């Protein structure tokens, strides 16, 4: 069957090239049937990539070690869920997943186009064809998942840290985000190529951008939780290059989601918006390059291969072609309106954009600095946590505050009187929170205290927006308070979904500040029966247990946990020794308090033959708010993404008014 997989990928490559060439010719010459044929090629490319993916999946499930990829990434002892996750656990498989998602999205985008998008989609097709062709080429010629060998008796197994349930969801979710950004990019380039730089490309890509951005956000949170429970160092984000690789396009996409509102409301920032979409997609390519090329050392960079130079060349090509197109179309992108006041909502969004971009570029510089320093001085200098933490405070804290200020300021301009009225309550609540927290001893970390105070400000603005809005809807005739609330959200899903996302960011900020600025740590070597204390907790090492699972030998130190003299039960921390992989992993013990959001986090750093264990224990206040923030983030994203019938009718009516029926 590997030949079938290879043949399917070769056909995908051919179809992508056809979509590129025929699509270009059709769009340039205005030929309808050729354009449709090129779009069909993209849909067919999804079908053939699906066939290739099924071939690989079947080979994984059948432990067919004649596939080099299967032998490299799995073993007979590997549990079935992880055998499935091996699909994206290695370089070739993850590239195939990229192509599968890309062709799937491309097929969906061209198959569901509306009549008023036809003109744009004709140009979208060759752009997506080019991106598909690049990935198909890599899989056909550089990193084929269908390479074969004489089958060994067993495979090499999977890196232990990847043998975690989060690996079933984290990489695919992240890929949905990375790849999803290709669609807004293709529409932006189509707008430039066709010269149709009106609002249509923004309307056509709004949901794609939101979806990709939400998937990137959720994927990162899943990854952070994976690092927290699996990597076993006591944290969830280490400013690792590959973690940063996902954060950068998310920051660029966040900036775009805000600045696009200025274009929709005021017709401003057209050049800026196109540049942000190009930046977001280029950074998503860069992220894949970082993860898959092995160019930087990272705990997440599981593979190294020959794809690096190809990827780098493609990124350079994408950036160069995109910027050339922007330059060519500059006269069409000039905005008809200008900023009226520096105290307005659009100005607040602009400041937010500048801060997001500054943070994004600072992180980018941190990621590439080891490469630059190695090229210039022959020595790779890695910028440490202090560098990133410093800039997170410098740009992140004002960003947090702006999240509260933006919704309070009117579009166009706001008077001092209006500002005093709207800022009064949030400011009072923020100041009161700051004073109370200072009195409670939170002054030990000034950035933490500032983050809490700003969070209180933003949370108050969000509550006020919902309360005022619901009251206004009730006054406008809603029959009940819940009805008024539902009507408020339903009538402006993006605005109120956005506020829910802001609430998630507030929870995230509180969780990060609490767990990083106010955490505590203790270390001790304990023999069975001995105890240690940290904060209000007392841990007594009771015994060491050993058990065998399908693919590993587990050693667990069992600890009795008390807080303030009250028994809280037991906690287990230890190590897994993986037989096939010949590797050992840390398996941490975590006890979460659902009331305070605090975690007791135990690492068994070293287990000695005499049964004594070196423990490292953390108390992380409020850390669970980070994971709760994930749920709130999803809720806000779903609200914002939910189809708005009113808006669909408005777009349909507009299309009808220019004589283009909106039906598909």
């Amino acid at each position: 069957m590997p030949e079938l997989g290879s043949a399917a990928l070769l056909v995908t490559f051919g179809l992508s090239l056809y979509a590129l060439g025929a699509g270009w010719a059709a769009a340039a010459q205005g030929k309808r049937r050729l354009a449709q044929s090129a779009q069909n090629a993209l849909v067919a490319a999804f079908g053939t990539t699906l066939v290739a993916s099924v071939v690989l999946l079947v080979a994984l499930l059948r432990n067919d070690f004649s596939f080099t990829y299967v032998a490299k990434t799995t073993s007979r002892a590997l549990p079935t869920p992880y055998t499935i996750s091996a699909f994206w656990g290695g370089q070739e498989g993850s590239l195939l997943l990229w192509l599968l998602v890309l062709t799937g999205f491309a097929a969906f985008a061209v198959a569901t186009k509306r009549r008023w998008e036809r003109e744009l989609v004709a140009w979208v097709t060759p752009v997506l064809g080019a991106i598909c062709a690049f990935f198909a080429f890599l899989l056909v010629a550089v990193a084929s998942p269908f390479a074969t060998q004489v089958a060994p008796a067993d495979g090499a197994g999977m890196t232990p840290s990847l043998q975690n349930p989060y690996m079933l969801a984290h990489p695919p979710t992240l890929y949905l985000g990375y790849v999803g950004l290709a669609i807004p990019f293709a529409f932006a380039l189509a707008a430039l190529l066709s010269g149709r730089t009106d609002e249509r490309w923004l309307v056509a890509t709004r949901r794609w951008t939101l979806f990709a951005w939400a998937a990137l956000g959720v994927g990162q949170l899943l990854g952070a939780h994976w690092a927290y429970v699996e990597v076993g160092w006591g944290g969830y984000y280490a400013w690792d290059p590959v973690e940063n690789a996902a954060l950068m396009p998310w920051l660029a996409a966040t900036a775009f989601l805000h600045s696009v509102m200025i274009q929709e409301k005021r017709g401003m920032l057209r050049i800026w918006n196109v540049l942000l979409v190009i930046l977001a997609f280029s950074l998503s390519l860069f992220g894949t390059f970082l993860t898959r090329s092995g160019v930087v050392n990272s705990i997440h960079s599981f593979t190294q291969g020959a794809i690096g130079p190809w990827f780098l060349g493609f990124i350079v090509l994408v950036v160069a072609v995109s910027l050339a197109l922007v330059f060519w179309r500059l006269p069409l992108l000039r905005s008809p309106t200008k900023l009226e006041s520096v105290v307005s909502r659009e100005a607040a969004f602009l400041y937010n954009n500048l801060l997001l971009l500054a943070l994004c570029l600072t992180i980018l510089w941190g990621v590439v600095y080891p490469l630059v320093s190695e090229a210039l001085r022959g020595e790779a200098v890695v910028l440490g946590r202090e560098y990133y933490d410093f800039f997170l405070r410098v740009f992140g804290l004002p960003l947090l505050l702006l999240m509260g200020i933006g919704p309070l300021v009117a579009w166009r301009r706001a008077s001092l009187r209006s500002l005093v009225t709207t800022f009064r309550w949030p400011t009072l609540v923020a100041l009161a929170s700051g004073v109370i927290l200072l009195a409670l001893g939170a002054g030990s970390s000034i950035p933490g205290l500032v983050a809490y105070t700003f969070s209180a400000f933003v949370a108050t603005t969000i509550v006020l927006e919902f309360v005022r809005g619901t009251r206004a809807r009730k006054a406008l005739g809603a029959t009940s308070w819940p009805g008024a609330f539902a009507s408020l959200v339903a009538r402006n899903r993006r605005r109120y979904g956005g506020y829910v996302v802001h609430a998630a960011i507030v929870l995230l900020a509180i969780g990060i500040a609490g767990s990083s600025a106010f955490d505590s740590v203790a270390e001790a070597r304990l023999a069975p029966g001995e105890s240690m204390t940290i904060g209000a907790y007392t841990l007594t090492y009771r015994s060491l247990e050993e058990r065998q699972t399908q693919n590993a030998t587990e050693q667990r130190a069992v600890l009795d946990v008390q807080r303030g003299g009250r028994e809280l039960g037991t906690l287990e921390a230890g190590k897994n020794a993986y037989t096939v992989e010949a590797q050992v992993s840390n398996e941490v013990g975590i006890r979460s308090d659902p009331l305070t959001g605090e975690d007791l986090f135990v690492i068994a750093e070293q287990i000695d033959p005499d049964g004594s264990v070196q423990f490292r224990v953390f108390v992380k206040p409020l850390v669970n708010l980070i994971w709760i923030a994930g749920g709130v983030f999803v809720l806000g994203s779903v609200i914002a993404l939910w189809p708005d019938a009113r808006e669909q009718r408005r777009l349909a009516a507009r299309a009808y008014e220019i004589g283009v029926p909106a039906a598909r």
Partner: protein
Amino acid sequence: MTAVALAIAVFLAVAVVVYVALPFLREPEPESDALVELDERERRRLELLERRDRALAALKEVEFDHRTGALTDEDYRSLVGPLRRDVASALQALEEITTEDVPRPPEEEGQPVRARTST
């Protein structure tokens, strides 16, 4: 390659070629093969419609913010005037370029402009 794999590959190749050629197979000699594009007049109309809708949306938001108390009376008055003028000028420009009959949207596809301005 096994016989099954070969058969699937052949089927795949044929299916793909047919599917890609489908637009030409369905319409060997179409009346028109031109991609529907907007002419200059339609493009201008689209720009004006976007301008009108943008101003209407802004007007709605200002009115709602005023109602919620987020905007003072003074700010509301200073903002609402220019926005109404924007809407009026877009509507006037639309009126000027509409020389022929424009089909009315069916009920399920759109609503009259006035209905969409209410909050």
